[in-house]
């Protein structure tokens, strides 16, 4: 059946060839499915929908693009689906670093090697947040207080990016936190506003409204240099006014969460190249810049070996933390 379908596809491509530029190696011939490994409204879902609307607006492909949410099991549902669709170039999976982190710490039925990496498109920053009326003015005040009592640190999901960062802070500052996992960063933000937890490490977009509304404020950013100057968030401060954690004596110079794009395994290099090119075109539009700015993310584009190296580095790092915490699945 495979052979027949290929044959028919190539015949179809041949018939259409007159209408296409000569160098077009592979073009989609049927609707493309964007699989968001998050529920509606989540960061990954927003990315998939932003890319979809840009593609539609600029007619970057003739085929319709449909977004499907497969966010069950902290995203595992979407990756497992991608694994099961091996060889199908019409399914594009949008995820985060949990594509390679999740298989380390829980018994999910996929690994990132089952998928074909396309690109990492944007990076979300992490900040350390406390309640507005908390007595600590700086990160070092906070860590001093944390050394005396065990603080409650909230975050999205368990053994995921938020908890990994929490454990890294514990180690760097020699303190101990009780980590409380919630469903999402937004939930953790509300719990902090209500005073049920002491801190969390949300992304900028997850707590932007809370900062503007003076219910919580960032102490430091886990970034090598200060975040880019944007419009002021509160009356007096913007993202660039938040010191880096290193400035504050917390030696974690960089921690970011990439938004990643994948194809199922066993697709041809031409098909992968088509989507790399498509994502590049998306990234060149003003709408993309606007999306990046509104969600306070960092624009990056990693593909090919650069992306592979990034994954390998991150994997080493997470393996180390997970190993120390005894999270690794046997």
């Amino acid at each position: 059946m495979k052979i027949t379908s290929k044959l028919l596809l190539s015949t179809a491509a041949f018939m259409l060839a007159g209408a296409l530029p000569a160098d077009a190696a592979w073009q989609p011939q049927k609707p493309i499915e964007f699989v968001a490994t998050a529920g509606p409204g989540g960061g990954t879902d927003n990315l998939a929908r932003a890319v979809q609307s840009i593609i539609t607006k600029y007619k970057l492909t003739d085929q319709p693009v449909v977004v499907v949410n497969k966010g069950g099991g902290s995203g595992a549902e979407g990756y497992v689906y991608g694994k099961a669709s091996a060889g199908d170039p019409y399914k594009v999976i949008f995820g985060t670093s949990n594509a390679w982190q999740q298989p380390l710490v829980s018994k999910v039925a996929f690994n990132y090697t089952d998928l074909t990496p396309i690109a990492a498109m944007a990076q979300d920053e992490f900040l350390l947040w406390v309640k507005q009326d908390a007595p600590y003015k700086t990160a070092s005040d906070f860590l001093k207080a944390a050394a005396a009592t065990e603080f409650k640190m909230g975050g999205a999901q368990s053994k995921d990016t938020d908890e990994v960062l929490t454990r890294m802070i514990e180690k760097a500052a020699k303190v101990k936190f009780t980590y409380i996992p919630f469903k999402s960063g937004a939930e953790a933000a509300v719990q902090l506003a209500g005073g049920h937890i002491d801190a969390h490490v949300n992304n900028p977009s997850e707590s932007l409204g809370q900062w503007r509304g003076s219910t919580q404020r960032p102490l430091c950013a886990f970034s090598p240099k200060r975040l880019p100057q944007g419009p002021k968030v509160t009356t007096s401060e913007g993202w660039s006014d938040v010191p880096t954690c290193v400035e504050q004596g917390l030696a974690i110079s960089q921690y970011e969460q990439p938004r990643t794009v994948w194809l199922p395994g066993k697709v041809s290099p031409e098909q992968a190249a088509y989507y790399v090119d498509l994502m590049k075109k998306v990234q060149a539009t003003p709408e993309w810049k606007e999306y990046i700015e509104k969600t306070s993310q960092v624009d990056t584009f990693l593909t090919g070996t650069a992306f592979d190296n990034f994954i390998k580095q991150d994997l080493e790092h997470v393996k180390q933390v997970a190993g120390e915490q005894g999270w690794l699945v046997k």
Partner: protein
Amino acid sequence: MISRRALEIAAAVLTGIFGVVVVVSSLDNGIGWSSAGVDAGTFPFLTGIIIVLGSLYNLGQGALGRGTLAIVRVAVTPSELRRLAGLFVPAAIFVAVIPMVGMYLASAAYVFAVLALPRRRSVLSALVIAAATPLALYVVFERMFHVSLPHGALAAAFGF
């Protein structure tokens, strides 16, 4: 004919097996309640135990012919069973062939078979309903809401 006793026993055995599966697989997740919180397997384990115990009780009650429905002896008469099978068997076949022929073809064939074969409807009206169903599905799901229904291996072979 299926007696109520047999049905009660079957249901209790079914829930009991489910309970055992839940207990066994929750052991993998760890059971415990300490100052570090409650382990992932603890609550599933407890619910599994409750299901097993409850099923044993229901099994006993059913076998002894006691309980809420004690007066009812016969659960399903032969003619009722025929009608049940008449609905369920075609539905199960319909579901079974979806991966092969896809939702559209399967639903059309299913509607036609259920309406025309037992002569509930004239062949013509059955044909009309059988053709209208997948068409309506296509328009609403595939076109309006961009929800793609399974096209089946057959369609894939033809490059759709």
